[in-house]
């Protein structure tokens, strides 16, 4: 094996930076799932009757469903009875200000680089911090309310804005949508809720930071964003988890509703613990994300997926209204023994609807990366347009990249384009950069970042910088 190939392997076996765990006094339910657990969760959260019924309906549906096996993923069986479905840090019940946040939790977030003190925060980004099953704090809530924007934990929304939640919950991802969405609907614990009223441009970026801390728990969060007519919002989510030898399950549901002429931009930097180089431990990430775009609305998904042992995720857009726009920009990195089966679904229903898909898959070490995407043009969708570009970058001999595009067109006026490429980081490229004085590590990171440029350009500024750094760290190793 040439020296360059060997070094690439070293580069792609870096340690996980957020692998620490915090000793929090945690209220945790015994493992296992039956109807009583669903009732327990609902009562812990003091939920109204309708929501409990909704959960129970989902639970009953889930019991009858089979785990999907069509993804190109090699997963050891998940024992749903060994997982605890409720974990919450014990703390003061009511948080009136940031000073009430448990100092241990605050320290944990400081360590993650997410200070929860408003004066120390990134200006113009409001954060909802979620540990295990519950939201611990939301910053800038008052400032946002002045603009009419509601940004709070899902649990608070259920209490304070029950009509809004009831109207939209499950309206984009029905409880029976798929196995993991049904499970989430039954046991979801918390998440974020955003509501942007008519004509309002949200004055700051909204962001949720998810942290799994407790052992042997699943995290099932639920996010709902409703953007009324002519409104605009940009939302970011970040995720990390401690390094543990057991696999942990994360099954989230995100629903977006963009009413007429509204725009929702949803960005994710997912860095759950990926497991070690032998494939021990790591998060199983099974996520259902979908948005419904009404007339002239636009929904844009941008994701940078560097973590998780398993990623199963297809952020989608239902292009229901005429002239609605759906976008999907994705970077997925599979290092070590990570497996990612990710992509999108663009469902064209309205006339003159447009979708764009840019997917960049990077496979290193023994990583396996699959792009799976569906472009569906229904009979009603006159003049629908889609452009899809899937690029794969291979960094080792043992890794794999797979592209599985599905295209279903029922209207002859549709124009659907698909481009795909597979390449490697050439020894020539590394040599060229090194001849110009860069270390091999810097060169590698520059080349890989260049490969992802089109996607990073879609991220908000702070996140773009973070994503570049994350990618470099994920690829960095013991060179030199």
């Amino acid at each position, binding site marked *: 094996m040439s020296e360059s190939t060997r070094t690439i392997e070293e580069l792609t076996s870096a340690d996980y930076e957020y692998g620490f765990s915090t000793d929090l006094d945690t209220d945790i339910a015994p493992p296992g799932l039956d109807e009583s657990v669903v009732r327990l969760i609902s009562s812990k959260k003091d939920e109204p009757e309708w929501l409990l019924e909704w959960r129970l309906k989902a639970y009953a549906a889930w019991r009858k469903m089979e785990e999907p096996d069509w993804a190109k993923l090699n997963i050891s069986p998940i024992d749903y009875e060994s997982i605890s479905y409720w974990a919450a840090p014990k703390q003061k019940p009511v948080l009136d200000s940031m000073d009430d946040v448990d100092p241990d939790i605050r320290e944990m977030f400081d360590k993650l680089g997410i200070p929860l003190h408003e004066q120390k925060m990134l200006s113009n980004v409001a954060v909802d911090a979620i540990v295990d099953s519950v939201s611990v704090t939301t910053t800038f809530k008052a400032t946002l309310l002045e603009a009419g924007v509601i940004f709070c934990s899902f649990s608070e929304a259920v209490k304070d804005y029950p009509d809004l939640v009831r109207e939209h919950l499950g309206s984009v991802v029905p409880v029976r949508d798929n196995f993991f969405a049904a499970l989430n609907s039954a046991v979801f614990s918390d998440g974020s809720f955003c509501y942007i009223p008519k004509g309002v441009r949200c004055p700051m970026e909204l962001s949720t930071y998810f942290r799994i801390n407790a052992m042997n728990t699943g995290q099932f969060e639920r996010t709902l964003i409703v953007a009324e007519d002519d409104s605009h919002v940009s939302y970011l989510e970040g995720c990390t988890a401690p390094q543990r030898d057991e696999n942990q399950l994360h099954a989230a549901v995100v629903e977006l509703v963009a009413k007429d002429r509204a725009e929702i931009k949803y960005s994710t930097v997912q860095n759950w613990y990926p497991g070690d180089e032998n494939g021990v431990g790591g998060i199983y990430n099974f996520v259902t994300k979908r948005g419904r775009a009404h007339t002239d609305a636009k929904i844009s998904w941008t994701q940078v997926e560097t973590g998780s042992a398993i990623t199963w995720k297809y952020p989608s857009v239902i292009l229901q209204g005429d002239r609605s726009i759906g976008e999907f920009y994705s970077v997925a990195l599979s290092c070590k023994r990570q497996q990612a089966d990710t992509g999108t679904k663009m469902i064209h229903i309205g006339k003159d609807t447009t979708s764009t898909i840019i997917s960049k898959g990077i496979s290193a070490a023994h990583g396996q990366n699959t792009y799976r995407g569906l472009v569906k043009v229904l009979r009603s969708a006159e003049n629908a347009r889609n452009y899809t570009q899937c690029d794969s970058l291979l960094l080792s001999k043992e890794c794999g990249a797979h592209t599985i595009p599905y295209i279903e067109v029922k209207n002859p006026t549709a124009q659907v384009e698909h481009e795909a490429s597979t390449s490697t980081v050439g020894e020539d490229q590394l040599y060229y*950069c090194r001849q110009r004085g860069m270390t091999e590590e810097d060169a590698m990171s520059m080349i890989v970042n260049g490969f992802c440029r089109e996607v990073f350009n879609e991220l908000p500024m702070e996140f773009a910088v973070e994503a570049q750094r994350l990618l470099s760290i994920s690829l960095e190793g013991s060179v030199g």
Partner: protein
Amino acid sequence: MLHVNNLTAAIGGKQILNGLNLDVSAGEVHAIMGPNGSGKSTFAHTLAGRDGYDITGEVTLDGADLLDMEPEARAAAGVFMGFQYPVEIPGVNNMYFLRTALNSVRRARGETEVGARDFLEVSKKAMDLVEMKEDFLYRSVNAGFSGGEKKRNEILQMAIMEPRLAILDETDSGLDIDALRIIAGGVNALRSPERSMIVITHYQRLLDYIKPDFVHVLVDGRIVKSGDHTLALHLEANGYADFENGLGDASAQSLAGAQS
């Protein structure tokens, strides 16, 4: 400054350089000419530090053992190579690449890094030298560049990196006469008493523009004849046949040895 003594290089068991000797002093421009497969590019790459060669012999730059250094350390020591086939790096803009390169060598030398604003000044001056427009800086490194643009980009990089020793590997290949003139103009402007250059070329044409102090003929991995720029004219008229059938051997070795 550069001292090459009995250098041999093989790749995949195939011997390419067979005891090459060369000395280059500060401020000198040496041209290396030779037929296809004579080892010209291999010589350039062994100086720059490309991986994959089995090398024996000695190469020092200002007394430091070059063969022992990684390519990036050689760059920091002042070695620059203009590539025959400049590599494309999609998605990385030229300016970012150039500034990272410059700051990498500056950091390695313990010098302060150049900020974005100062760098723009530096690069504008360098761009004038090779008659490039500013939009060039914002395009991806060599991606979608024409052959001429790629070669001009190499000279631009050389102007920014300010090397001690520049090795230009067939910088003239694939250029039309206007591009050749621009590139040669750039190279000539970068000649200085502190900077040495090794210009590798097939054709005398380039040497009409860049007048070398010495011309060496490389055949079968050895320098078989050395002389002044008139040697290039001789080659242009008579080709390499004289040297390839071994006639030049004896005199060439003595000439190369005397050269320093």
